[in-house]
């Protein structure tokens, strides 16, 4: 009898859990995305100048600052769409995630789930499957943005 109750409890728990995951995945869309991990504030606001140079090596230092400061990290896909990174693997830290700080400005390929809500794409990354490093050598054209990120000698 006890075993039966236990089995039923497990069964019900499993049912509820699958229902919960079902709801979550129904709202989101499984995707593989390739793009650069960017600092969304500087890129979107253009507070430091045009978005086209708020990528790659020119903005690497600032991108690390902003990620460590808890500004949302974005994945800038090749088609220009921005996805806000809300989780990486099992780590649901989306503020200064230590697993992302060392990959800022890198072009990565990820598998994950995208939830679209009120104009923003929220990306829950399951795994980073490839990392091509920094591919845009923007510092060769514009130096470092902001210039004061370069330590004074």
């Amino acid at each position, binding site marked *: 009898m006890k075993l039966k109750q236990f089995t039923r409890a497990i069964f019900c728990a499993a049912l509820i859990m699958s229902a919960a995951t079902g709801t979550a995945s129904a709202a989101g869309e499984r995707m593989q995305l390739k793009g650069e991990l960017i600092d969304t504030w500087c890129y979107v606001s253009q507070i430091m100048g045009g*978005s086209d*140079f708020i990528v790659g090596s020119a903005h*690497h*230092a600032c991108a690390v600052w902003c990620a460590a400061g808890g500004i949302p990290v974005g994945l800038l896909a090749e088609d220009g769409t*921005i996805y806000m990174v809300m989780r990486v693997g099992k780590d*649901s830290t989306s503020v200064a995630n230590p697993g992302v*700080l060392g990959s800022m400005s890198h072009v990565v390929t990820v598998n994950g789930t995208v939830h679209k809500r009120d104009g923003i794409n929220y990306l829950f990354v399951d795994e980073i499957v490839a990392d091509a490093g920094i591919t845009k050598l923007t510092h060769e054209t514009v130096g470092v943005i902001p210039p004061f990120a370069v330590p004074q000698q």
Partner: protein
Amino acid sequence: MTHGIEMKRMLVVAAAAGAALCASASAYAAKSWGVTNEEIARFDAKVVDIACELGGDCPANCGDGKRQLGLLTDDGKLILVSKNATAFTGAAEELVDFCNKQVTADGLWTENRGVRFFAIQFVREVGGEWRAANRFTKKWSARTGIEESKAGNWFRHDLRIKEVFDQKGLLGLGAEADKKFLESRQ
């Protein structure tokens, strides 16, 4: 855009941010930062953990500052708050104190490249006392044990950042690339 103009712009922005903080004792109203498609706004909304709102993964206290937080309006719109009023910092540390509470948010919108999100400059619980959204530096100082006099430039003293730069250089391309770049500037 030349460096001169960028620098000038940075100074204007820094001055604007500074002025906003200095004026905070008397005037709790957002100042312009000159960002793209800027729109100054004040509205009431509930502070929510975005991952919780989207997927039902809801740790205690909205993730204790480790999660991106948003503002949920009465008509069900979810707003991503990307920025607070200190340098190079987000809004989680400002909003987490109001987890699941109704607040009045004061700040500005920026919109570009398909994203519209909010930068918060002042916040209060509805009917409560205003505060400037500049708690980050104090909390950073408390968390790291690094004195508050350095917290204004926290990004120059943060050990997590130092570790990345030590390993990958300022440009993210390694020490050799940094050396070449710095030499080319002389």
